[in-house]
């Protein structure tokens, strides 16, 4: 039995210690906003927060998440209080197919915790999430809109 705290709720799961967190979240707990893209930490679709850190849940065993606070896209914001990135994603009409966007939002919101005003160059060096629809330009604009575009003033 593994005990996980996901979006503030405790779940006791009968899964092996080495099961990747992604599958515990999706197939066992049933939260499907976190996506499967590659299974080898390449694409970032599966990004969630472990405490304050953005991690690739497809290669994070559930045992590594015990005792930590797991946040998924479902709890990034609320309908009443969306995350600033979610609002900017709508304002800039970022998503096309949308499949990678949970991961993009979790990865970039994770980045904002240590770098609240990332530049385009910061995104280029820190964010490796893949978007096959090619929404990268709109992601840059939305991040700038939400954070002031690298300006710290």
């Amino acid at each position, binding site marked *: 039995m593994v005990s996980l705290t996901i979006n503030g709720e405790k779940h006791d799961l009968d899964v092996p210690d080495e099961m990747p967190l992604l599958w515990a979240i999706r197939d066992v707990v049933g939260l499907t906003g976190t996506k499967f893209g590659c*299974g080898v930490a390449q694409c970032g679709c599966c990004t969630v927060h472990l405490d304050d850190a953005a991690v690739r849940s497809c290669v994070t065993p559930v045992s590594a998440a015990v005792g930590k606070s797991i946040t998924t896209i479902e709890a990034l914001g609320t309908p009443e209080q969306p995350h600033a990135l979610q609002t900017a994603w709508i304002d800039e009409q970022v998503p096309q197919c949308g499949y990678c966007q949970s991961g993009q939002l979790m990865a970039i919101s994770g980045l904002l915790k240590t770098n609240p005003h990332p530049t385009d160059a910061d995104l*280029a060096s820190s964010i490796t999430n*893949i978007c096959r629809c090619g929404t990268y*330009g709109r992601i840059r604009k939305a991040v700038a809109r939400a954070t002031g575009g690298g300006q710290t003033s």
Partner: protein
Amino acid sequence: MTTINRGDFVRLGSVFAGSLVLGVSANGCANQSHGAPSASASPETAGFKPNAWLIVHPDEKVTIFVNKSEMGQGVATGMPTIVADELDIPMDNVIMEFAPAAAVYADPGFHLQITGGSTSTASMWMPLRTAGASARAMLVAAAAKQWGVDPSTLTTKNGSVIDAKNNRTATYGSLVAAAAAIPAPAKPTMKTPDQFTLIGKVNQRIDTPLKVNGTAKYGIDVRVPGMKFASVLYPPVFGAKVVSFDASKAKQVKGVTDVVQIPSGVAVVADNSWAAFQGKAALVVKYDNGAFAGQSTETLKARYLKLASDGTGAIPAVERGSKDVSGKRLEATYFGNLAAHAAMEPMNATASVTPGGVEIWAPTQVQTMAQASAAKIAGVPVDKVQIHTTYLGGGFGRRLYTDFTNDAVWVSKAVKAPVQVIWQREDDTQHDWYKPMGANSVSGVLDDHGNLVAMQHTVVMDSIYEGLGFPLPPSGLDAISMDTVVNSSYEIPNYHAYYINPKSGVPPGSLRAPGANWNTFVVETFMDELAHAAGKDPLEFRLALLKKNPRAQNVLRTVAKNASWGSPAAGTKQGIAFGFWNGTSVATVAEVSMNGNTPRVHRAFVVADVGRAVNPTIVLQQLEGATNYGLSMALASIITIKNGAVQQHNFYDYIVMRIDEAPEIHAEIVSSSENPTGVGEPATVTIAPAVASAVFAINGKRARVLPFSEAYT
């Protein structure tokens, strides 16, 4: 999928339709409810249902059924926008619902329920306007009857019928019962474009909010009570068969419940996806690898190049004017490697086979084919197969195939439970329907003034059309594999085009602008070679060959103006290219520098003429996205074959673009009052040749191979 408005395509289209035995009706518009959702399916279906496309509910909401698959290209917003505008309701009142698989929802051009060829808006434009206008006329007639006035004295606005003379209004919701008794008009009056309130003006997408909070449901997110998860081990070599397998270790994996053989491979069924993957890894399988096991990229490439050079089996596609024209002659041979779709959502489908029928939940682009195929596998009539289309996590043509829906049906049938078959990324990379290899032999003749007076073009490419499961016409000509060559936009007096089908054994796929995504690279790069040999500006050289084509001229001139053609930013060079896909003219200028052997695209300017843009923001998204998709594929995406199997596995060896390589893109739609044309694919084709010509301007190296990682070494 490609155009259907040319002779060859019409012929192909009739084969396309005739190969199905479903009795699909072509005029699937008003008042045919066959196969449409039943009124009791959900609480939202109560109300006035004038045709298959919409239901007006008493609470003023209107359910609009979308018969096209939403894979990012925006149909879930665009289709309802067209209906809502003619119906005269605000977008806030729209409830979008994906249509079930049914004859009434067939595409009027393909006679199939299918999403491909950037045809959705073009082909559904009039049927959806008619459906909305028809419903509006019935609501007006219902109000007129209640009030005892002539319908022509009434107007509509924002979901209400207005009697201005007598200062009264009736909301559509209040009229649902009365409207149900009104017959549908034979020829409803549609709006004139100046009356549009939504078309051309809506710039948000219905699905954006769902895609930023994790609530949009894709195929992989389907959850059905009692369902299992399955992963299939497919033979790595194309055409190979399973001889025997040992599942004893797989069955020891915690969570694995069944291991079953299906026609495509061995399926491991489990309580969760990960257990299924673990079980698959523990399978021991013996294969009969078959004849293709001896093939490699090198053997295939050698054969393609030989065919392109000696012309064996060439099928005439266009023969215009003389083949014997004197002047300055240029010849070149181009070779394009295999590429994979690599949609972000791996292939998957969920099926439940019961004695009564089949239910499928899937991210499919081909409802009609998935339904027909499932019926055959399960041994039930087609009308006992229900298809629920989910959101698609990218499509790009990959989901035009029924392999993944078939497998879900096979496994569910075997284990007698609902099953989601989920592919690992490695399965997706190694069992795609690939952008075929292409070997193209081209020649051109310039007269004394540097005008292009003759061109010959031979295309060696597997048949994309056959890959889709349809028989070629008796000539053997595949107009999809020949796209942009068989229907060249350029006005060249002496023009000859030939097709050779090498039948390589690699599954040939329809990938975003199929055929054209390679052939346009050849044509446009060769145009740059010719312009250079003629000593002419590449823009002017093209304009001289498009004199009768004002829309092509317009996009070229506009993109040149936007990009300050001839005055590149410091440290960069420019390249230009023109493309034509299914009615849409597109042109791109790329601003490039070299980083070692890798082109670095700083800015890309793209301009398209898509006719009237229903949702301008979505059109711009598609121009931007297609540019990045085409550039990503051109930079370093390559699938290679060794011993009959694909050598790449995942995103660490099948390389796609990330944000660090994404150029700044300036997209523009030229203003047009023509009917809409497609936008999902066109801009895929022009970026690679624009980049290649810019690189030539930098270092004099001509890329006659794609991807660039194979060309610049």
